[in-house]
Every structure is written in structure tokens, then in C-alpha cells.
């Protein structure tokens, strides 16, 4: 039991770890990783249930709960990290665009991220029972690779939660650049329920004012 308490204490750190994407955008009091996890789980479950998708909701929620555990040790990452300038002014300019890389660099970034997060998760769960370890690792791999319909759906719902949060920050502060989120959304999502949700976000958030950038 002492080992499981240690595990719970370690993952409790996620309640205090701000998400890096908001930090680099200078959001005041940004949401934490655990706060994102909480809503991503509900978003995924409810959007799938809304359209009566034949998915295992228990599995979706488990994938949601564990998908960012690795960040206790690996830290949060953003797509900008490999090209992030040091000064704030340059960062403000950079986050106005969606970062694009050559196929080789994409592969390299993805491989390095996977290796780092995989090692972090293994370290985090090393003292859990073999059954729990196996289950957590399997769920995480499913999320990473989108290998089951549940893993794939959650991977996209995870981005949708991020997109919703960006829109909420923009509602409060019109200086938050939304264009990269829209570009990503239009290239990434192909699930009908998530595309419908994106349209709804547009109607809900841009009734009075359209984002300029």
C-alpha cells in the first residue's frame, strides 16, 4: 500500500503543473495538466455518447485519465518547443502561426517525445502491480498510436478540449492567437461529431466578433 500512496502523491503533482502551451502564451493562472485531463475525459465521453457511438466509454475514460501521467516526469511539451526563441516578443510572434517541419524533423520530434514519455511513464508506474502496470502501459500506447477506436477518438477529443480552452481564453483576451488552433483543427479532425462540435464552437464564441489572428 505504501507504494500506491507514493504513486498517488506523484500523480498529484499534475494538479499543480500548468500546461506549457498556455505558459508560453503568457496566460495568467493557466489551467493545470490535471484540470485539462478532467475535462478531456468528460468531453470525450459525452461527445461519443451524444452520437450513440459504439465505443467502450469506460475505456475512453481510463485512457483519458492516464494519457498525461507521463508528464509528471517528462513535463508538458508543445509543438513549438524545438524552435522556441528565448525572448518573449519573438515567442509572441511565433505562436501566431502553426509550426511546420520537414518530414524528417517531424519524425525526429515524434520519436524523441515518445522515448522520453515512455521512459517517464515506466518510471512512474514501476512499483504498481504487474496487472496495473500492463493496463496503464497498454492504454497509453493505445492513446499514442490511436490503435483502437477508443484510443483514436480520445486522441482527437483531447485536442478538442485544448481547442475549447483556447477559445475560452480568447473570449477573455482577444490577444490570444486562435489561428494556429483553427489550422490544426481543420487538418486534424475527421470525425463527424468532433467536426460538428468545432462548428458549434465557431457559432458560440464568434457570434459578435470573429478572431483576426
Amino acid at each position, binding site marked *: 500500500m505504501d507504494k500506491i500512496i507514493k504513486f498517488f502523491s506523484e500523480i498529484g503533482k499534475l494538479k499543480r503543473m500548468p500546461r506549457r502551451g498556455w505558459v508560453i502564451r503568457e496566460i495568467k493562472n493557466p489551467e493545470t495538466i490535471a484540470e485539462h485531463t478532467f475535462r478531456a475525459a468528460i468531453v470525450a465521453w459525452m461527445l461519443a455518447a451524444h452520437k450513440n457511438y459504439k465505443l467502450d466509454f469506460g475505456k475512453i475514460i481510463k485512457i483519458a485519465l492516464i494519457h498525461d501521467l507521463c508528464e509528471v516526469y517528462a513535463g508538458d511539451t508543445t509543438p513549438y518547443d524545438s524552435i522556441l526563441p528565448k525572448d518573449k516578443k519573438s515567442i509572441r510572434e511565433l505562436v501566431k502561426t502553426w509550426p511546420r517541419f520537414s518530414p524528417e524533423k517531424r519524425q525526429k520530434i515524434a520519436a524523441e517525445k515518445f522515448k522520453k514519455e515512455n521512459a517517464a511513464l515506466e518510471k512512474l508506474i514501476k512499483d504498481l502491480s504487474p*496487472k496495473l502496470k500492463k493496463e496503464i502501459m*497498454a492504454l497509453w500506447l493505445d492513446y499514442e498510436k490511436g490503435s483502437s477506436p477508443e484510443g483514436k477518438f480520445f486522441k482527437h477529443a483531447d485536442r478538442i478540449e485544448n481547442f475549447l480552452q483556447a477559445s475560452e481564453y480568447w473570449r477573455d483576451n482577444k490577444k490570444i492567437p486562435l489561428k494556429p488552433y*483553427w489550422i490544426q483543427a481543420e*487538418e486534424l479532425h475527421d470525425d463527424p461529431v468532433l467536426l460538428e462540435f468545432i462548428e458549434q464552437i465557431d457559432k458560440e464564441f464568434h457570434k459578435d466578433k*470573429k478572431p483576426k489572428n
Partner: protein
Amino acid sequence: MEEKIFYITKKKLQELQEEHEGLLEFERKRSLSQEAPKILESEDLNPEFVSFQEDVGFLRSRIDELKNILDHHELIKNPAKNERSVVGLGAKVKIAVDGQNDEFLLVGTLEANPAMGKISNESPVGRALLGHKVGDEVFINSPMGITYKIKNIKYEIS
């Protein structure tokens, strides 16, 4: 299960066939109480995952899902030479967007991986690019109105 056509490459078809056969064999051996085989090593199929599937009873639903895909798939092939100037499934498309250049491979939903430049033909950008030619400017109807300019189209499906 919805009857939908799954557009996949030959490589993906082989992977799915191997996974389907492997899981059927796994299920058969398990029903005979024999030791589970440890032969499932395709890139997208992690033994841990399969083992977990068995533990929680999702094995059958994955087998059914794979069968549905295999029964309703269409292979992505290179189009005839006179049709290669148009963006279609399997096209490698160089684009310019928002002051940057990028390259997409247009694939079906099962192989989509935008982080790796593989864009689904069912995504708004994928759908919009289909049927266009080099030089076309493709407008995506989003709040910012993003435009993709097509700079090059190639087909390299093996």
C-alpha cells in the same frame, strides 16, 4: 456497424490482415486453453495491447471491427497518368499556407496522422484539396478563412 468504405494503402491492408489473422489465432488458442502466442509484432500492434484486450474482453470487438474494415475497404492506388495532375487519395501535395510551406499525403481515416503530414480525406482540409490542381488556391471556410495554395502534386503509392 455502419457500412462505410475504408480507403487504405496496400501496406495498411497487409497490416490489418496480419492483425486479424493473428487475433483469430489468439482467440482460437485461448478457447482451447493453450498458451497465447507471442507473434504479434507489426508496427501498429503492440503485444501488451493485445494481451490487455484479452484481459478485458475487447478481443472479439476488435476482430469484428477488423473484419468490417477488410470487408469494406478500397485500395488507394496511383491514378492513371492523365489524372495525376489532380489531388486525389494517395497524392503527395506541396502546399503554401499562412506564409509557410508544407507537404501532405492524402490518406483515408485509418492512416491519417497529421503530425506526420498524413491528412485524412474526411478532414475539412483533405476534403477541400481533393480535385484541385497545381496553382489552385483552396479556401477553407473557418473564422479566419485560411487559404492553401497547391504548389506540387505527386503520386508515389507503391
